[in-house]
């Protein structure tokens, strides 16, 4: 690996379980004596619970308990922590589920009903009534910008001497961009199944992107050793970031299960998932940009202001891309958060970089038109050969090749660049492009290998898989290192008792866990060599000059298997180079001039993400990210009615994630060249760059089709018609 050799496209190793319905997700384990939890949630946004009446619910058939702030069992790890966030910009009181009578956001749980069947729990929950003392709430970011604060992370950044070059350059543009609340909405409903197998022995089936992180959170909450918390999460029905936290309701369910001495399962409703498992924050941005008449960037000013909760700081890298993407001498970025009476956001695929890229890549397109250049030529002209923020070389950067491959495939140069000039029947035709970028991260990860006497190899690591195909990629890496047949290798994940690894997030799994698999398999080869054995022709054989088979060697060593555990992490190269994955998106759209409807007709997306370890699942990652990008660009928006502080479209009928009819055939191209420094495979991450920037490609295509710049997502027909 790490060479130019290409990997074979492989069907998913866990695909059979998924197409036959045998794959078991957290809510699907049969547990004797299982009970069901249902949450009752607040109908006000800020204030206190005056009275809560649970009598009828308690008397309803099959009900085991109704928990409210009045009788919720104490969660020892929460009780220890200070109840205020005074040091944080958000500054409010901490949110503890059922911890007090305070209401901090709409949809906050006020009761947890547990009954012996789902239907009984649901019915009993409907019988809980509450009265409130309402106070004024603030959910509108635009009306609360005076509260904007600089978070601890992501301070202001400036480079260059001409602080106002974006104003004084010969050609300038300035505009505001808005991103609404978007909600991850993985298809699987969130929740947890908690079982206490002893006073301090907890087992959970969880929907998590990090089994170790969930283990740590639960161990901390109940003040029990981490090893006493078993976390199982072999299959996860999508995450997109919402599984990067163990949410308070999951801890509360475990507390209820402990007191009731019964297994308790919570499957949240889709409506509850809009308020209680995070979202992409509503963000307003301003970009000013200055350039020479010949299209050389002179200055960029980028400011982002995003919502967070009153009870927690949420931050993300919204303005990060602007600092290094283009060779621009003068750059200033600012990032602010505004505490509001809403549930806390969480990273959503692409996270802040996707928000920032919409603004930056829209502005780049606008500037290209203003200096009368092709947007592709403009990007090439301002290409950063080295990272201008960190002043380091890129570990690899094949953007120029990516621009070329993508533009050839979509027919970029065959279009007429003039806005509004192309038609297909009565539809206006537009082409747009954008760039995406995300850090190529590598964390520490551990892998255990067990080579059995029958020649099967089992690899284990406590990572998670929310869908990208982690097991498939790991089996492929092990196959390429050892030469062992694919069908003899099994990768096990989703169990916190396995050797430790990080969470699945930030596009780092293949790089981190894959490196551990690579190093462990390499060590296994060395161990075999010592025993006079080697991987050969897809199996294990004696090396030349030796005759003892693996079975015989194991027998003499009194073992039933060979075993190696290795930890792996990056070295000095991580500081020496600036490591990023890049994507280029090209979109061809149709815009209907009378109705304002936008259809994405064709997509070509190019990934420069190092060597591709698993081509088939990697291609699915790319088309998946683009599909998410179509939603971001055209359909997705969680609308809050600020009079009530409540989402009005918190369901899949009214919050429009893309459906099949919204998504054309998507062509993916991989540069597929190993990065010499990222990790032993030469791979870089892919999950985020698939989405980052795509919404700008659509917005730019809409401009090309219509001459209208839509700077507020999603680009719905009303915005086109009124622009």
């Amino acid at each position: 690996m790490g060479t130019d050799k290409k990997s074979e496209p492989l069907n998913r190793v866990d695909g059979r379980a998924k197409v036959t319905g045998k794959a078991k997700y957290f809510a699907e384990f049969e547990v004797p004596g299982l009970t069901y939890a249902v949450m009752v949630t607040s109908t006000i946004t800020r204030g206190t619970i005056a009275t809560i009446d649970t009598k009828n619910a308690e008397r309803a058939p099959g009900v085991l308990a109704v928990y409210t702030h009045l009788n919720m069992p104490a969660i020892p790890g929460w009780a220890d922590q200070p109840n205020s966030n005074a040091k944080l910009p958000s500054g409010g009181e901490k949110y503890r589920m059922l911890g007090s009578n305070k209401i901090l956001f709409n949809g906050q749980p006020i009761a947890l009903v547990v009954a012996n069947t789902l239907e009984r729990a649901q019915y009993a929950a409907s019988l809980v009534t509450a009265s409130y003392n309402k106070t004024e709430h603030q959910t509108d970011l635009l009306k609360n910008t005076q509260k904007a604060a600089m978070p601890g992370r992501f301070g202001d950044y400036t480079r260059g001497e001409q602080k106002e070059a974006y104003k004084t350059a010969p050609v300038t543009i300035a505009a505001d961009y808005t991103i609404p609340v978007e909600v991850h909405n993985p298809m699987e409903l969130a929740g947890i199944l908690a079982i206490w197998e002893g006073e301090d022995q907890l087992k959970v089936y969880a929907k998590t992107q990090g089994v170790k992180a969930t283990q740590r959170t639960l161990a901390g909450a109940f003040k029990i050793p981490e090893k006493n918390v078993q976390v199982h999460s072999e299959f996860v029905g999508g995450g997109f970031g919402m599984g990067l936290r163990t949410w308070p309701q999951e801890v509360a369910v475990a507390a209820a299960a402990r007191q009731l001495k019964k297994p308790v399962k919570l499957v949240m409703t889709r409506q509850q998932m809009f308020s209680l498992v995070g979202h992409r924050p509503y963000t307003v941005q301003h970009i000013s940009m200055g350039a020479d008449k010949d299209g050389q960037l002179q200055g960029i000013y980028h400011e982002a202001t995003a919502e967070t909760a009153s009870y927690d700081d949420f931050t993300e890298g919204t303005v990060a891309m602007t600092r290094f993407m283009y060779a621009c001498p003068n750059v200033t970025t600012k990032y602010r958060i505004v505490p509001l009476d809403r549930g806390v956001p969480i990273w959503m695929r692409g996270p802040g970089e996707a928000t920032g890229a919409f603004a930056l890549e829209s502005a780049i397109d606008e500037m290209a038109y203003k200096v009368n250049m092709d947007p592709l030529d403009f990007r090439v002209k301002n290409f950063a050969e080295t990272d201008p923020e960190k002043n380091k070389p890129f570990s690899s950067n094949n953007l120029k090749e990516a621009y070329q491959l993508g533009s050839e495939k979509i027919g970029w140069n065959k279009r007429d660049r003039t806005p509004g000039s192309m038609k297909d029947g009565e539809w206006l035709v537009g082409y747009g492009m954008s760039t995406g970028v995300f850090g190529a991260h590598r964390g520490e990860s551990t892998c255990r290998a067990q080579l059995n006497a029958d020649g099967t190899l089992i690899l284990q690591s406590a990572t998670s898989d929310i869908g990208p195909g982690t097991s498939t990629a790991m089996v492929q890496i092990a196959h390429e290192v050892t030469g062992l047949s694919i069908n003899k290798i099994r990768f096990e994940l989703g169990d916190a008792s396995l050797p430790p690894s990080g969470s699945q997030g930030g596009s780092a799994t293949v790089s981190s866990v894959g490196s551990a698999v690579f190093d462990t398999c390499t060590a296994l080869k060395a161990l075999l060599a010592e025993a006079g054995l080697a991987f050969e022709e897809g199996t294990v054989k004696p090396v030349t000059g030796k005759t003892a088979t693996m079975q015989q060697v194991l027998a003499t060593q009194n073992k039933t298997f060979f075993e190696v555990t290795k930890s792996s992490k990056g070295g000095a190269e991580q500081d020496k180079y600036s490591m990023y994955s890049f994507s280029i998106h090209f979109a061809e759209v149709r815009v209907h001039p009378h109705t304002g409807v936008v259809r994405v007709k064709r997509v070509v997306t190019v990934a420069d993400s190092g060597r591709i370890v698993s081509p088939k699942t990697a291609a699915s990652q790319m088309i998946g990210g683009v599909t998410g990008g179509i939603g971001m660009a055209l359909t997705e928006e969680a609308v809050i009615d600020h009079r009530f502080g409540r989402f009005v479209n918190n369901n899949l009928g009214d919050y429009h994630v893309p459906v099949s009819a919204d998504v054309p055939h998507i062509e993916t191209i991989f540069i597929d060249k190993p990065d010499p420094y990222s990790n032993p495979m030469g791979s870089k991450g892919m999950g985020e760059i698939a989405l980052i920037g795509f919404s700008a490609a659509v917005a730019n295509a809409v401009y090309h089709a219509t001459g209208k710049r839509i700077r507020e997502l999603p680009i719905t027909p009303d915005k086109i018609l009124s622009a």
Partner: protein
Amino acid sequence: MDDQLRNEEQNGTSRRSFLKQTSLMTALALAPETVLKAAESGLDEKIAAAIETMPLNVVINGVKQSVRIEPRVTLLDLLRERLQLTGTKKGCDHGQCGACTVHIDGERVNACLTLALTTEGREVTTIEGLAHGDELHPMQEAFLEHDGFQCGYCTPGQIMSAICCIREGHAGTPDEVREYMSGNICRCGAYSNIVDAIMDVKQGGKKI
């Protein structure tokens, strides 16, 4: 159902008050003393179970199932919570996502919007009923081959829906497939591959 009865017997809390408030029991209020005596002797749950549940006979994946369930139980919850047929997924419980798509008498239906009792005497097929032993259904094979999924959660519903999409004659072109598969949401965004898988099965011409 056995589980439910067992649970009821184990959890005798508040049974008397339950008997008093259960609307179906108001008829028996004419003889309150009898009822209360029954409650004292722990018969209340059994009486409630007898009154509040109804018999259901349905063939699921070729197997005849005879159960007693409450009328409010959906086909989806019957499958997932009582019969351990968890291949059928719950994604919204409102008929908005298609993850729970099953076949009832050969037609695609959202199991979350179907009260289980309405399937009396009918034939239900779920994802677990498609393969013959190790031999996958052609649609399962095509999804595997075209990587028509990532997390796999919507997949059973997509596959059940895709089979009917072809049977209904709605798989003439990729665009027609897109239209007639739009009731099944895939948040991982595998649509492009799903359409390829369905067109592949359609063009393969196998009876499905």
